[in-house]
């Protein structure tokens, strides 16, 4: 269990110097565009764009290796499950059937299904660099500022920043308690039966949660004493004001989204790109 979630290593380049608000907005609108579009060509453009941005941001491969591994496993499982549960979903979507070869009567591989599933893989792949980029290139103290600047209530934004602040403490507490309980002979490994293991996990949860509730008390008193929540608005120490590059990045993302929407409305007449229609 790592106490650090991700490494924020400051660099001086185009992506790092953008305001957190810009990166959050770009991340959100591009993610939602990819969610909406089922046109492989549009998604390919966004995929290339997002990998280009990842390259620009000079994030090292070792920083994203584990995420990449998780994502690939997830994509593989989803790919297999989709085919197992709905082998003819593509046929339904595109309204035509071009068989490639058949395994059994139900599991016939069609071009439509292949296009649908490959588009889906591309969709997943293309949003990953965007999320990683936002996480790894934004100073964690700037998260709350960027959230509140896109219109989230500052109280909710503050909760997010508390979460990030106290996550490492929680990990440390959990490890301390788990080690103390294991020293008393509590077995958490697979050797124990499921029921006993659940009970043993509860023996860690209880002190962890009670100490957290005490912590809630202490922190909220400290915040109340400093007058938190007195005004409707607040300013942020870590907020980076928008500069020329931010406007540039926002316009670029805006153009991509506009392009994707135009393709959907005027060329595909819907979310799906259908090369099989005659």
């Amino acid at each position, binding site marked *: 269990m790592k106490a650090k979630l991700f490494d924020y290593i400051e660099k001086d380049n185009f992506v790092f110097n953008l305001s957190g608000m810009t990166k959050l907005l770009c991340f959100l609108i591009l993610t939602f565009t990819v969610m909406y579009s089922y046109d492989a060509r549009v998604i390919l453009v966004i995929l290339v764009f997002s990998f280009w941005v990842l390259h620009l941001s000079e994030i090292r491969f070792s920083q994203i290796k584990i995420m990449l591994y998780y994502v690939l496993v997830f994509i593989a499982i989803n790919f297999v499950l989709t085919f197992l549960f709905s082998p003819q979903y593509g046929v339904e979507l595109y309204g035509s059937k071009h068989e490639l070869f058949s395994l059994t009567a139900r599991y016939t591989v069609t071009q439509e299904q292949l296009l649908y599933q490959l588009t889906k893989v591309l969709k997943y792949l293309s949003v990953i660099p965007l999320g990683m980029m936002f996480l790894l290139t934004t100073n964690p103290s700037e998260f709350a500022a960027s959230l509140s600047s896109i219109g989230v209530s500052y109280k909710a934004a503050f909760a997010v920043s508390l979460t990030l*602040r106290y996550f490492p403490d929680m990990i440390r507490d959990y490890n301390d308690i788990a080690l103390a309980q294991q020293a008393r002979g509590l077995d958490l490994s697979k050797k124990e039966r499921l029921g006993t293991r659940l009970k043993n996990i509860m023996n860690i949860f209880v002190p962890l949660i009670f100490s957290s509730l005490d912590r809630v008390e202490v922190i909220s008193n400290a915040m109340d004493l400093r007058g938190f929540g007195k005004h409707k608005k607040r300013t942020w120490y870590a907020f980076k004001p928008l500069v020329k590059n931010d406007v540039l990045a926002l316009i670029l993302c805006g153009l991509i989204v506009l392009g994707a929407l135009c393709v959907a409305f005027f060329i595909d007449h819907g979310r799906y790109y259908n090369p099989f229609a005659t």
Partner: protein
Amino acid sequence: MKKLFEFKTKTIVATGIGAALFMLLFMYIKVPTGIPETDIQTAYGIGAFFAALFGPIAGFLIAFIGHAISDAVQYGSPWWSWVVASGISCCIVGLVYPRLKVDEGIFGGKDILKFNLYQILANAISWIVVAPVLDIVVYGEPANLVFTQGAVAALSNAVSMGVIGTILLFLYSKTRSGKGTLSKE
């Protein structure tokens, strides 16, 4: 009188701490059931516990923030339909908040029943209706796959909330002293 949608400093802090706990459990502490990819997420037990203590807004934000950040850290990008469903499930559990008096040390048989009714309702709505429908509408996933996943999630999360949530609430109520419990010797 407890207000349903109050958002005091204490609620905000409880949300932040709760979400950090939720993340920790969500990422690392799962109980495998034997079926691949369907672990019992202990995190929902904690989410329900905090929701019952601090109300629906705290519940929603704890699950939403916790799920979104852990997805982002693990997969690079949150899976929004399930993140929203997570939030809604803990939000609905939070609706039970004005009806409970755990703070005053009262959590008897009737309260356990109430909490579990809300919890089962919450899981049914969010995992059998909200998550699959959002998956189909937003992500264009095939219907029978997402409804199967949703049903499994509803069941395992209901177990997690029912067992862990109930036990925690019960133990917590034992540590609180109620009104007028002092007696003269």
